[in-house]
Every structure is written in C-alpha cells, then in structure tokens.
C-alpha cells in the first residue's frame, strides 16, 4: 500500500548518497524524474489492484486509498515530474542542482503524497511539516543571495505560525470530541452538528486559518509575493504548482473529509476569504512590474476563485474546484516554463519589461506564453475559461448570483495585467540590455533545451486542447468526489 511513498523515499536517499560524489545535476535530475515515473506507475497499479479486488478505501484509520487520494497523488507526481524536467538547466546554471537539492525535492513529494491520503490528524500534520520543511530549505538554496535568505526566513516564520494555528485548532477539536481519526470524527461531528460548542467552532476557525496560510489566500497572503520573488525560479515553480496541489489536498481532507458537517461554521468564512483574495490578488497584481510578483498575486486571485467553489460544499462543487486547480496549475506551469527557458547568463528575466519583443526573437515561445496568459485570464477557448465558467455556473445554480457577478467583474480587472504581458511580448520593440553591447537582448535562450521546450509546448498545447475538449477531464473530476 505504501509502495509509491517507498519508491520516493528510496530514491531520495539514493540521490542523497550519490550526490556526495556525483556533481552532475542532469544525471541527478534524471534519476529523480525516473523515480517519479516509477511512482506514477506504482500509484496507478495499486489503484487498479485495489479497485479490482474491492479493497477497503481506509487502512487502519490512518490512511485513505480512495479516489481523492489517487487523483491528488497522480497530479502531484505529474506536476513534480514536469517541474523537475523544466528546472534542470536552470538549477545547473544557477549552481544549485546538488544532490541535496534533488533529495529535498523528493522528500517534499513524499510529504505531499502522505498528505494526499492522510486519514488521521497526526499523519496529515507530519506530512504537512515534511513537505513544508523541505520547501523552506529549497527556497534558501541560493544561500549567497540575500533576497533568497529573506524569502526563506519569511516563509519559515509564517509557515511555522500557520502550522502552530493548525495544530492548535486540531487540539481544540480533539479536546471537544476525543477523536483524531477522520472517519469516526466526521460521524461524531455529524451527530453534534446542530448543537456544536464554541470550542469546536474556535477549533474550526484555527484550522481554516492554518490552511489559508498554506494556500496563500488573503488576508493571509503577505508572504506569497516575497517568496515568489526571492526563491530561485525552479523552486518558485515548485511552490506555485505542486505545493498548491498539496495545500488543496489538505483543504479537501480537512473540509470535505472531516469538517463537512460543520459547513455552517466555515462556509461564510470561506466566502469572505474567497472574495477578499479575488479582490486583493487582481488589484494588487496590476501595480507589479516584477514578473514573479505578478504571478504571485495572480495565484492569490486564483485561489480565491477556487475557494468560491469550495464554499458551496457539495460534491459537484468540490469537483469543479479540482478542475479549477488543474487549470490553474497547467496555466502557471506553462507561463513559468517559458520564463525558465529564457534565462540567459547575461540577463535574468525579472521585470515584465525584460520580455519586450519576445515575439521577434522566439515566436513559438511567445505564442506559448500567450496561451498561458489567456488561459489564466480566462479567455475562451482555453482551459482557464472553462474552469471559470464552471464555477460561475455552479454559483448561479446555487442562487449565489451576487458572488458570481463580483467574481466576473474582478476577472475583468484581472485581465489587464495578463493582457499587458501579451502587449509587451507582441507590440513592444526589442531593447538591448546594455547600450554598450547592442547585440545582447534580454529574451535570449539559456541553452537549446529540446526536452524542456517540448514540455513547455505540451503544457501550452494541453491548455488549448483541454479548453476545446474539456468533457473528459470534467467527467473525470466529477467522479472523484
């Protein structure tokens, strides 16, 4: 049952040991990616095996083997595979691709896999700490750059605070019910849902705040832009995609598998978090000139839309939230993939204006970035549009028309900063980096990277393909919950 986790753990330790002698980042990354492929295979095999033999979806009250766990694990593994593949050249170039770097990424994957099938508060919390701790260290992996250290310390302190709040909430709920395992706890909470005590609602609020910190939604978002800016790009991609899926998995486990009977407590709070995140994310992103900071605010806004689906607390709403999460992850992956391909040793792309005239130099990369931006903005016929449309449809079905209108109006505000990037790429002229060296332009390829380019194209293509034919994916998401 623990074969996928075992493979990841084994691979992490092997990489840690071989990394002592082996300094070839490409080989280490290859090893890590190979182990992730094996993990995917193992996940699928175990799922089909347990499905065929009708095995119990719960193992000794600690471990879920249900559809949610399967889907979350598979998405975490696939995005981790993409993130590692896209970041190989960058890590080599920035000289951070040591054995420890890849070992820590695999340990983070392990923590995420644990979180995805946690059926007990203890397992959930240890898994959460495992992947958080690994990511704190990864953020600081360029330890000679002060902005990276600053980001890591901020992330560490806010993350520790969030974990503390989460733990406090868990202890309050444990104190009120005497249960730590999810399945009996949910039954107990269902019984006392109407006459719940203040102790329980206080615990629920603490848990919600802790998860909101991890997910990076307003008003607990202050760390997000600094960490996106300060972390190395490959680690930032990690935080923006895989860690977000893991945070969503925690959200599903806590709100859907435990606290669903107490929806009357947390639904209004989640509504507030959702609307505030959409507002803060979309308006603050307009003022950003740094590409990574802009993506950070964009992620805050997207998490807001996600929570807008979550607050409905029905099976189909959770499915739509999962669909939205996938569309956000693919869109962000595509956008950052292009930026990762464009890092040149003379010119890091930090500012949005560094992308001036990308279309003239690299028309294909410009097109992929255009797809990503249109998808994140929610322009048909791309995947982002379908996801937003599903959420709005769900809100209207549940008679929450006010929320739907607010969300859509703020989406229009948000479209500005996505479209500005497209304007910079397509309509601005190339600007030499340094007047003394007129032949070096900022958007230059780091190196010819066929695999990473193919991966970026694959992400961009899937945005278009899934946008036009979303039925399969949507059907898949609907079957999960």
């Amino acid at each position: 049952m623990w074969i996928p986790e075992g493979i990841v753990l084994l691979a992490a330790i092997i990489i840690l040991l071989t990394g002592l002698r082996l300094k070839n980042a490409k080989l280490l990354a290859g090893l890590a990616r190979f182990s992730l492929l094996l993990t995917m295979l193992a996940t699928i095999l175990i799922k089909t095996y347990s499905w065929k033999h009708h095995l119990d979806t719960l193992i000794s009250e600690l471990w879920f083997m249900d559809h949610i766990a399967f889907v979350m694990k598979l998405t975490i593994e696939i995005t981790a595979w993409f993130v590692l593949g896209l970041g190989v050249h960058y890590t080599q170039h920035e000289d951070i691709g040591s054995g420890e770097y890849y070992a820590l990424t695999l340990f983070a994957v392990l923590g995420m896999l644990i979180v995805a099938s946690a059926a007990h508060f203890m397992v959930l919390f240890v898994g959460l700490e495992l992947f958080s701790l690994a990511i704190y260290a990864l953020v600081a992996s360029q330890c000679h750059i002060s902005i990276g250290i600053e980001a890591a310390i901020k992330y560490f302190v806010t993350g520790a605070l969030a974990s503390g709040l989460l733990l406090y909430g868990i202890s309050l709920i444990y104190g009120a019910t005497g249960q730590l395992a999810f399945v009996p706890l949910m039954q107990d909470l269902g019984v006392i849902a109407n006459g719940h005590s203040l102790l329980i609602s206080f615990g629920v609020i603490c848990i919600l705040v802790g998860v909101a910190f991890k997910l990076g939604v307003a008003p607990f978002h202050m760390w997000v832009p600094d960490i996106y800016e300060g972390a190395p790009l490959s680690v930032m991609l990690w935080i923006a995609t895989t860690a977000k899926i893991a945070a969503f998995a925690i959200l599903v486990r806590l709100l859907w598998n435990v606290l669903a009977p107490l929806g009357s407590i947390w639904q209004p709070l989640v509504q507030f978090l959702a609307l505030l995140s959409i507002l803060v994310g979309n308006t603050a992103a307009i003022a950003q000139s740094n590409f990574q900071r802009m993506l950070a605010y964009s992620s805050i806004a997207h998490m807001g839309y996600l929570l807008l689906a979550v607050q409905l607390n029905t099976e189909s709403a959770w499915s739509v939230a999962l669909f939205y999460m996938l569309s956000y992850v693919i869109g962000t992956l595509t956008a950052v993939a292009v930026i990762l391909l464009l890092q040149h040793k003379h010119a890091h792309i930090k500012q949005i204006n560094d992308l001036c005239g990308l279309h003239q130099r690299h028309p294909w990369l410009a097109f992929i970035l255009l797809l990503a931006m249109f998808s994140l903005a929610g322009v048909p016929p791309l995947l982002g549009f379908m996801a937003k449309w599903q959420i709005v449809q769900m809100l209207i079905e549940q008679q929450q028309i006010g929320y739907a209108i607010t969300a859509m109006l703020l989406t229009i505000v948000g479209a500005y900063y996505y479209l500005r990037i497209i304007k910079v790429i397509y309509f601005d002229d190339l600007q030499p980096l340094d007047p003394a060296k007129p032949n070096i332009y900022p958007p230059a390829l780091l190196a010819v990277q066929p695999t990473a380019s193919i991966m970026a194209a694959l992400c961009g293509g899937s945005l278009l393909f899934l946008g036009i034919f979303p039925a399969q994916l949507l059907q898949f998401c609907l079957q999960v919950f």
Partner: protein
Amino acid sequence: MISLLDCFFYSISSMLVASSLAVILVRHPVRAALFLVLSFVMAAMLWMLLEAEFLSLVLIFVYVGAIMTLFLFVIMMLPAEESLSWKKWRGFPFALLLFALLLSLLFYMLKHSLLLGASASPADTTSTYTNTQAIGHILYTQYALPFEMIGILLLVAMVAAIMLTFRGRRVDAKGQCINKQVRASKQDQLKLVNIPSEGEKG
C-alpha cells in the same frame, strides 16, 4: 472545599503564569531564558498533577535539558543589547487591542463554561500498565506509521540544516595532509648550498 490537589494546582499555575510573564517583561535576555526554563518546569509539574509522568519528564529532559541549554549558549554568545525599550515599541496600542480582544473571547468562552465544564481529570485506573508502557505500546502499534514519518522528518531537517550551513571547503583553508608529511624525505625538504665563508674570499 479546597483539596490539597487544588492547592498544588493553583500555586503551580500562578507561578507558571508569573514566570511566563517574566519571560517577556524582563530586559536581560539571559534572565528571560532562565524564566522560560522555570515556566517549563512548572508546566511539567502541572502534567505531573495530571498523572502524565512520562510527558512531564520528557518535557524537562528535552526542553530544559537540551533545547534551553543550547538556547542559553547562543544568547550568551550574542552581544547583549538593550533594544527592548518601551518607547521604541510602536505597535503597542494595536497589540493591546488584540490582547483585549483575545482576553474577552477567552472570558466569553469561560462564561459559557465550555472549558471548565469539560475539565480533564485523570481516570481512576487500576491497570497494571504504567503511562510510559501505554505510550510505547500505542506508539509502536497504532501510530507506527506517523512515528516512522517523524523519523523521515528529522532526516529532512538534518539534510536541510547541513545544506544551508555547509559552504564547501574554502580554497585558502589551511590544513594538514598527514600522508604528505609522512612521505616527506630529506631530499624534498633540505637543500644543501655551498656558501663560501668570508675568510676564503680574501
């Protein structure tokens, strides 16, 4: 009727509150750390009252014995700065507001007797188990999985700490190479030069 247990409880918890307050009010960092030690000891005694003798001793061993000792070393090595002046603390009104809010929330909860109503008291057990055995039993059977995971967590913490502090061997680092020293022979080190004495010159 106040029993002896209540007497113990109230005296220990008032000392706990007082020493915790002292941690943040005392100016000298070393004294603050020592007060923190005192509050850990008091918390351990509270646990002892709850008949949780294993946890109480672990708290003393781990926190007082290991963590706070390390902490004291670090504080003593840092230059003591008197930076904790009240005038510089600009966020005080906001902190006071937050404090009042939380305190009123706490009193609201106390008034509804939610915390006091369900006060924990040790169950009268006549089992042959001791607390330590019970914890060990549950730790290695029911909670074996999270226990193993904590092991991995500690490994990650160690790897991360080493990665962040190890900067590689410095180029100009001085060190002995024992092999080279042992293999050294007279021919490598000693060079005989013929220098004519001054007397022969003339």
